[in-house]
């Protein structure tokens, strides 16, 4: 009995010691989104970081992609912001303006900062103070994928690079011809299946407006009325509405990935870089990667993705920075990203990504980054801008009046900016 009591006391003491050690550890909370593959990858990175830093515990906070903003709002309101957070690049200006993020340069290892591509720096920089607030391993782009068999059937010209992208006339002419090719159910998949709960519409269709000669908002006066509802924008969205009305576009109800689904019912795809791996696996040599068409005077393509920032609520920003640096250098993390055909945001990652290097199958996507990429408006009103624009596009695709829908969206955006007194000091930029 005495021995048993002694063992019990020893066990309690050991447990107490262990608990004491656990309590002494610094806890770094990391909020992120992502599919099961990414969730698992982040978990493994955290374990490796903890092994290398036994005095730190990484607590991963998962928020589903569709409810990420709600989770973020709840964290802000309950004063439970994590130390590190994954954020969608266009929302950065809003978060910095609201005081949730801190400059990241002093916290991240210098070799990573030196390694960032221009586009990566741009997506993490706040336009007012020009400080860097977030960093990522990756960036993103959208290209025009084509099915070689169908394109050959209509004798389409295959562009070799960004400079000889299809013109609007060529593009619409090909859509018309493709609609008559046997086996083609829809000439193009514009990934309407992503719906309006994601950033897709603003991200992917915004460049069509910019290429056509207008924008979501005037980037000097920060007024949407007169820009989003201007003639070039109305014309561009009328053009897209016509594609939908003619039955050229994969409907939302048919889901996504019809370009590489069985039987390949869509001939073209206006798709993100992330579908390449799956599309290539399904289509083999039939896949053609082309630059986005020029719908007006210039070419335009999107950029920006989910990147990592450190919040002002962090009590251990140095350790949080250490974790972000560790993650961006982690070999397995990079391997997983490369397998997922991730678009490079660090030069060393680009050099290690044969997919995007010169001659690589996605080289044209990387070429777009330096020649045609236009970031989404870096303004604190971006959440209102994207919400209004996506609502308008949805209405237009469902048969609504183009001019009326864009005017209503523009007014909604301007109202949000007015209600926030112009989001000073953005109002002084005019």
């Amino acid at each position, binding site marked *: 009995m005495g021995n048993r009591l002694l063992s019990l006391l020893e066990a309690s003491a050991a447990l107490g010691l262990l608990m004491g050690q656990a309590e002494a550890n610094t806890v770094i*909370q990391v909020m992120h*989104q*992502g*599919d*099961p593959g*990414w*969730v*698992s990858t982040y*978990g*493994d990175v955290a374990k490796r970081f903890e092994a290398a830093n036994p005095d730190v515990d990484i*607590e*991963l*906070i*998962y*928020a*589903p*992609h*569709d*409810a990420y903003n*709600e*989770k973020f*709002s*709840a964290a802000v*309101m*309950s*004063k*439970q912001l994590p130390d590190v957070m994954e954020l969608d690049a266009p929302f950065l200006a809003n978060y910095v303006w609201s005081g949730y993020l801190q400059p990241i340069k002093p916290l991240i290892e210098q070799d990573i900062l030196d390694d960032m591509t221009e586009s990566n720096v741009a997506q993490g920089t706040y336009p007012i103070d020009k400080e860097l607030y977030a960093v990522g391993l990756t960036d993103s782009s959208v290209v025009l994928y084509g099915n070689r068999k169908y394109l050959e059937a209509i004798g389409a010209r295959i562009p070799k690079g960004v400079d000889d992208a299809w013109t609007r006339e060529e593009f619409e002419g090909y859509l018309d011809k493709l609609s008559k090719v046997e086996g083609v159910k829809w000439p193009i998949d514009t990934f309407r299946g992503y719906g309006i709960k*994601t950033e897709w519409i603003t991200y992917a269709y915004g460049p069509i407006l910019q290429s056509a000669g207008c924008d979501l908002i005037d980037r000097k006066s920060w007024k949407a009325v007169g820009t989003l509802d201007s003639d070039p924008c109305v014309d561009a969205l009328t053009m897209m509405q016509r594609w939908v009305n003619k039955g050229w576009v994969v409907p939302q109800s*048919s*889901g*996504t*990935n019809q370009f*590489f*689904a*069985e*039987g390949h019912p869509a001939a073209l795809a206006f798709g*993100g870089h*992330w*579908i390449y791996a*799956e599309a290539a696996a*399904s289509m083999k040599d039939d896949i053609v990667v082309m630059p986005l068409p020029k719908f007006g005077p210039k070419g335009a393509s999107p950029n920006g993705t*989910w990147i990592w920032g450190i919040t002002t609520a962090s009590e251990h920003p140095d350790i949080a920075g250490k974790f972000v640096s560790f993650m961006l250098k982690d070999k397995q993390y990079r391997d997983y990203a490369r397998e997922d055909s991730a678009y490079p945001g660090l030069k060393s990652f680009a050099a290690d990504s044969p997919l995007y290097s010169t001659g690589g199958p996605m080289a044209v996507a990387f070429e777009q980054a330096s020649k045609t990429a236009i970031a989404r408006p870096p303004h604190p009103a971006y959440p209102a801008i994207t919400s209004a624009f996506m609502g308008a596009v949805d209405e237009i695709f469902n048969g609504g009046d183009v001019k009326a829908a864009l005017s209503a969206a523009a007014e909604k955006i301007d109202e949000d900016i007015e209600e926030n007194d112009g989001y000073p000091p953005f109002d002084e930029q005019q």
Partner: protein
Amino acid sequence: MSDLVLSTTPLEVERERSAVGTLRLVQTACILVIALVIISPLFMLLVASLKDDRFQILADMGSFRAFWVSNPTLSNFAEVGNLSGELAYGRYLLNSLIILACTVGAGLIVNSMAGFVLAWGSLRGRALMLSVVIALYVIPQESIIMPLVIMVSRAGMTDTFTVQIVPWVASPLYIFLFYQFFAQLPKELFEAAEMDGASVFRIYRSIFLPLSLPALATVSILMGIEAWNQYLWPILVTQTDYARPIAVAIATFFGQDSIYWDRAMAASVLMMIPILALYLAFQRWFVSSFVGSAVKG
């Protein structure tokens, strides 16, 4: 003999019988079609969960192939049903079961007590309290969710099972359901027990509660479904996987770029089983409560 009987049946009666027969046939056919429409998505879900290729599931959608699997596999279930690791869906399922059991268990006690007091209690202002309960029912959950988040975080309740159970235990709808049920029981029951010297609590526990099986079954099922399907609330108030329910875990399959239909379907099937079991367990009383309320008008 039967021919003789039939031959003596007036023509009108025979016609009427034939019309009734046709009507029944049409009714049965309609019911079968409706049943097929209701069951087919569930059947498709089950079939899809047995396919091992998420692209195949996508390609099959919209055709009859969605209802057929040539090489069924349980690999999706094996993957989502594990109890450890980063994606421990089995563990999330257990979390959901704990939340369901505690919410429904506590909910039955609290709401039935409140309903009983409103129906038979001797408190002053019962009518006013009932009005307040009914008024509370019309307030949408979404409108109070953020203030509630702040409240529970200030109380230090985030990332616990408690925070997913306590706020949803008392519900105006279920209090009202119990009130209605108890109020319909004969007054004599209460008076006789009172004359025998039973306390109000004793009357509730020993007489009225055992009689309220249909109400208990209805509330169990409705409350169970509600607790089981909670999605936004757990996202807002849980930080880690410690107490996260299965509905949130399934959301990981719906990524920004791709949807893992195979595993999402398997997890959905697993998610359906407990709530189906709850319904089957209480079905008899659940149906009788509806029939009863319909008869009583």
